[in-house]
């Protein structure tokens, strides 16, 4: 459920508008094709998750198969992907929240809300940025000091989200605007059918949920059946929900309108056709807008947990400073991992939403390639490993998965070179920083080791890293 929560979560609300901007009405196709591409990776995840009983997601699997540096980079990339996804959700939360306030007439329409001046620092900040910042800060503090609030409510959240989306689709499909909907031309004038490729890259992040599912597998019963099932059911459900929602959104607001609304696309589409003048909630659109706010927040919560888990696993494996892999003595949470993730998230809410989406998608694409690769490597190197779930038609799925993900990566990189060199530079910088950190940590580790000698004992093994 946690995976589906994140998948259905914010991607749909935040990215629909952006996808429509690039691909026009073909945004529908974008989500469908992405579903197909990720299905191959889903097979790989299912096989790995069923045979390697570790929580920790893609990083844990790759760690099992690859040498230190590749697995380190995998964790490093995945960690970043989640953190940037966090920023993305925070950025998606802000305009939707403003739209919610707008629906109730508290503030003017989102585009009219300029900057909120801060009396203390005597500077003006964009309201959306401020809201995104606050959202991250709030959820991070919550997760840093308590484990109770995180995770357990996900199921309820997901049900709420799906119901809201069902209401949206039901109303939208019967709205008068939809019956006269115009899906032609399907593809945007410039670029034609190929224009959907960059949009696929951008929205790929919406399917990150696999990794989330496999980060929590330790709690699963009868994993042989349930993990593959969880992966495929959530994939299918996500694709169906996405298609329905995107179709309705494009049909009612039009691709043009969606694109203009950007991150709040779905919310504005809803406001346009939901009945108004209802008691209490006044405006049917408010439900959807509320759904968008709610979804972005819960997705944000999920990736705060996920990113800190990756950092926590890396710390425990000795691939980051050991303090990352420790539970705080007072709060009972992986405090250092959460705080470190928060710093990057807070730093990245200054990015434009689209850059955040691009970077996060890029890193998920890269890590999915590695995951597919590790299935192949594992089959070759450990043919006798017990695999409770074996994917059909091996080795076709992982190979196809690698090729498709690679194509999307290349398209996305090419697209970034043209339109968003900043995101590309930041991504490269992050990987560079990772390599530097890796060798720095290694040096740090080997020095005390040499002095210590070989003090091996049953319980008194000294921590090599401090």
């Amino acid at each position, binding site marked *: 459920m946690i995976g589906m929560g994140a998948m259905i979560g914010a991607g749909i609300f935040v990215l629909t508008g952006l996808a429509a901007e690039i691909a026009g009405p073909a945004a529908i196709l974008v989500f469908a094709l992405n579903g197909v591409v990720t299905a191959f990776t889903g097979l790989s995840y299912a096989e790995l998750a069923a*045979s*390697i*009983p*570790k929580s920790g997601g893609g990083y844990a699997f790759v760690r*099992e198969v690859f040498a230190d540096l590749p697995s380190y980079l995998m964790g490093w990339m995945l960690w970043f992907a989640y953190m940037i996804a966090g920023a993305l959700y925070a950025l998606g939360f802000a305009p939707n929240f403003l739209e919610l306030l707008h629906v109730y007439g508290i503030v003017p329409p989102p585009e009219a809300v300029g900057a909120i001046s801060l009396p203390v620092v005597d500077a003006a900040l964009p309201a959306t940025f401020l809201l995104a910042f606050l959202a991250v800060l709030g959820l991070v503090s919550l997760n840093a000091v308590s484990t109770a609030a995180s995770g357990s409510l996900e199921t309820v959240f997901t049900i709420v989200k799906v119901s809201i989306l069902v209401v949206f689709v039901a109303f939208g499909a019967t709205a008068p605007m939809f019956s006269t909907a115009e899906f032609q031309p399907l593809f945007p004038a410039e670029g034609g059918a190929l224009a959907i490729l960059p949009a696929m890259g951008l929205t790929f992040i919406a399917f990150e949920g696999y990794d989330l599912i496999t980060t929590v*597998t*330790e709690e*699963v019963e*009868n*994993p*042989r059946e349930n993990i593959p099932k969880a992966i495929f059911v959530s994939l299918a459900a996500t694709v169906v929900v996405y298609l329905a929602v995107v179709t309705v959104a494009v049909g009612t607001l039009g691709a043009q309108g969606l694109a203009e609304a950007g991150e709040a696309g779905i919310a504005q589409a809803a406001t346009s056709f939901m009945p108004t003048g209802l008691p209490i909630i006044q405006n049917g659109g408010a439900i959807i807008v509320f759904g968008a706010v709610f979804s972005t927040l819960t997705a944000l919560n999920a990736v705060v947990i996920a990113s800190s888990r990756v950092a926590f696993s890396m710390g*425990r*494996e*000795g691939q980051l400073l*050991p303090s990352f*892999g*420790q*539970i*705080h*003595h*007072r*709060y*009972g949470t992986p405090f250092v991992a959460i705080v470190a993730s928060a710093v990057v998230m807070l730093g990245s809410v200054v990015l434009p939403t689209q850059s955040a989406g691009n970077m996060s998608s890029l890193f998920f694409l890269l890590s999915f390639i590695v995951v597919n690769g590790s299935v192949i490597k594992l089959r070759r*190197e*450990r*043919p*006798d*490993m*017990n695999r*409770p779930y074996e994917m059909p038609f091996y080795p076709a799925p992982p190979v196809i998965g690698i090729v498709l993900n690679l194509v999307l990566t290349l398209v996305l990189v090419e697209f970034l070179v043209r339109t968003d060199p900043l995101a590309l530079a930041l991504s490269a910088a992050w990987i560079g920083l990772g390599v530097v950190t890796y060798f720095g940590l290694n040096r740090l580790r080997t020095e005390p080791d040499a002095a210590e000698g070989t003090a*091996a004992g*049953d*319980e*008194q*093994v*000294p*921590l*090599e*890293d*401090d």
Partner: protein
Amino acid sequence: MGSKLDVIIAGGGRVGFETATILDDRGHDVTVVERDQARADAVSDEYVATVISGDASNPSILEQAGVEDADAIAGLTGLAGLNLAVCMEAKDMAPDIRTVARIDTRAKESYTRFVDQVLFPELAGARTAANEIIGSDVETLADLTGTLDIMQIRVAEGAPAAGRQLSEIRFPAGTLVVSDDDGDRIARPDTTLDAGKRYVVAVEPDVADEVMNLMRG
């Protein structure tokens, strides 16, 4: 070698499987090598360890189990000779690995030339059986009937709980620190967990991992 160990267990029978379960509860990575396919599937279903189906004395199987990077290997099959062979092979392939072999006699000493540690599960079992037969109202630590673990844990240098008072530390529910250091007194809220000292702690298996993290880093 960090606080999280990578352990290979040869033999997924009763002894091997129970050992794997306990190690998994405490947050270690376990790989079980099991020759019998049906048994291997059963262990897989319990989801406590990665399972390699094959003969652990076969070097290529040991390689697949990741002997190069493992911290420890335990030969826990019912065959003492096989256990010794597996351990010695592993030592040859990875000289730093810690080896533990299950044997079938009380003559421990003669084996320790070849492996780091030997165990004789039947002796432990017999002790338990004797205690049960006598039916004493007072039982020793090893004879807990439930799943509760009572352990003596040495606090590691730099662990999150090291140097903190008990009242400052949030242990997960299902944990009880029983003794003061060196076991002279019962722990109190102001008891400090000093690095290098040992404490008796009772934990439920679900939270053993977290307790280990707090006390061992």
